[in-house]
């Protein structure tokens, strides 16, 4: 809309500002709480100006964790989360791009059947299959390990589907031109398909990184060892029983820390992310 109406501009800005405040205020409170002492947090009403405990609280959680709840250092948890998110993101991308390559470009028996099998699993979220999956992972002795954290979450119907849709928009002539040039299937995959999919890969990476980072239920089930906690689980473990016992200032500091990497990934990859979802470069 190329309209210039001061009132309209004012109203839209007002709407946006209200929206931002509604979303940002809780984040702000979280941050303020993470810079206060426990006593200050428990004052009613809580103050809304930053305190002087920033360094103290953050070094405390990063090095030692909480004193009342889990004593695992958040630094280790962040590392665990990072490993989990990265392995899941890269694993999902690698597996799904190869399987959609097979589904789109190769004729093999039951091709459509396999595609639909993959597609159907879209309808089964982790929660539905969590008990059998837990049993399998436990029997394989993968509890409290990175493999146990990541492997069961790595297959992705969504990503396979996305790559399949993208591959189907790649013109047939391109495949034929590569064939005329003497490129075999794998050569074509590396030299042509992969570079063409890079924006899709970037978009998927952002989505899957956040997906992996924010996993809650699965790590909660299979990590019992404090050294294997992820950041999200760490927050949960720091909250102990009654309100009075929980060190809210430390929980809030951990929450802020846990929020940072996904936000960073989105910020850094924003350009690619939007490109990958919006335009298909052909």
């Amino acid at each position, binding site marked *: 809309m190329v309209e210039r109406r001061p009132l309209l501009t004012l109203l839209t800005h007002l709407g946006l500002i209200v929206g931002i405040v509604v979303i940002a205020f809780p984040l702000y409170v979280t941050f303020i709480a993470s810079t206060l002492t426990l006593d200050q947090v428990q004052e009613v009403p809580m103050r809304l100006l930053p305190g002087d405990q920033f360094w103290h609280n953050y070094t405390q959680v990063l090095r030692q964790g909480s004193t009342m709840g889990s004593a695992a250092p958040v630094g280790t948890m962040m590392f665990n989360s990072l490993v989990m998110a990265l392995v899941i993101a890269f694993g999902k991308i690698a597996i799904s791009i190869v399987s959609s390559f097979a589904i789109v470009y190769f004729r093999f028996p039951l091709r459509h059947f396999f595609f639909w099998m993959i597609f159907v699993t879209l309808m089964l979220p982790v929660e539905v299959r969590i008990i059998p999956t837990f049993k399998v992972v436990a029997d394989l002795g993968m509890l409290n390990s990175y493999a146990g954290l990541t492997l069961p979450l790595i297959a992705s119907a969504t990503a396979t589907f996305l790559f399949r849709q993208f591959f189907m928009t790649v*013109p047939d*002539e391109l495949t034929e*031109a590569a*064939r*005329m040039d*003497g*490129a075999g299937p794998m050569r074509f995959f590396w*030299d042509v398909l992969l570079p063409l999919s890079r924006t899709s890969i970037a978009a998927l990476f952002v989505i899957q990184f956040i997906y992996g980072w924010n996993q809650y239920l699965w790590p909660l089930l299979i990590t019992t060892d404090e050294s294997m906690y992820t950041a999200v689980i760490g927050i949960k473990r720091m909250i102990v029983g009654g309100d009075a016992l929980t060190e809210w200032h430390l929980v809030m500091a951990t929450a802020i820390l846990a929020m940072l990497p996904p936000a960073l990934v989105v910020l850094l990859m924003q350009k690619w992310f939007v490109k990958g979802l919006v335009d298909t*470069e052909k």
Partner: protein
Amino acid sequence: MSAISLRKVIKRYGRGAAAVQVIHGVDAEISSGEFVVIVGPSGCGKSTLLRMVAGLEEITEGEIEIAGRVVNDVEPAERDIAMVFQNYALYPHMSVFDNMAYGLKIRKLPAAEIRQRVDKAAAILELGPYLKRRPRELSGGQRQRVAMGRAIVRQPAVFLFDEPLSNLDAKLRAQTRLEIQKLHHELGITSLFVTHDQVEAMTLAERMLVMNAGRVEQIGTPEQVYLTPASTFVAGFIGSPPMNLIHGQAEAGVFRVGGDALALPTPTPRDGPLILGLRPEHAQPAEDGAGWQLQVDVVEMLGAERLVYGRLGDAPFTLRLDGTLPAPMPGSRLPLQAPAARLHWFDTDSGRRL
């Protein structure tokens, strides 16, 4: 030696009873260095035929031989051919240089030779300044030249063109047509060019192969095809406006069309129902006033020429007159004469030339 031989080439899609046959046994010999254009209406199988030569479609029956080697089971990359696609099929993420060099890199040619071949092709096609650009940053004509460059650097035995000009605007198309012709004179590489555009076919071809519904109607030079069409299909497809095709009855030196009897300068090949073919420019006004009476309906002035639409008997007839001749009045009768050598006779049922 033949560069390409097609022997009884048949293409069927599907199997068994549900199979659809789209190419019904094509035979053709293409000599080394020849520029052959395959022309026909949409859906006549011309692209399929080209893709079979390229190796992108399987050959159901028959044989295709390239440079003395049967290639039915040879991979496209090993057929010693290069193809220019209709939408160019350039790799969007590679520079112009890499687009041209890709096939050579796969064949593991030394980098220096790749450089030299690409530079040479770029010089021929005037692409030198654009080697570092991506296809996206080029105009349609330039992309088309990159696609040709990619074919040239491979130094193949045969070039295959699949309607490469149809995505260009009219002006660029005429220009590129000339460039392709020039290129063919310089390189002398056997070329097979598919188009549905008869102007492209006539101007580019040394020989043309006119196809209709999966069959070859005629193979010959543009002159042969234009002056002695082998069937009513060819007569109607090549030439604009197309050849007049008049259904009538031949008997004893006259050709009866509706109520009119056209006197003929030479005897017909046989009596009975026939089709008379006559190009619009091959009939001329008879100066003595005698001859076939054309009932004039509409006259169009095109500058160099005038198109006169009318009827001979009850058959529609188009006449092409020199623009400097006086215009006939609509509604008047114009006496016509035509040289005997320009009258073509076709069988009514098969449409074949008699």
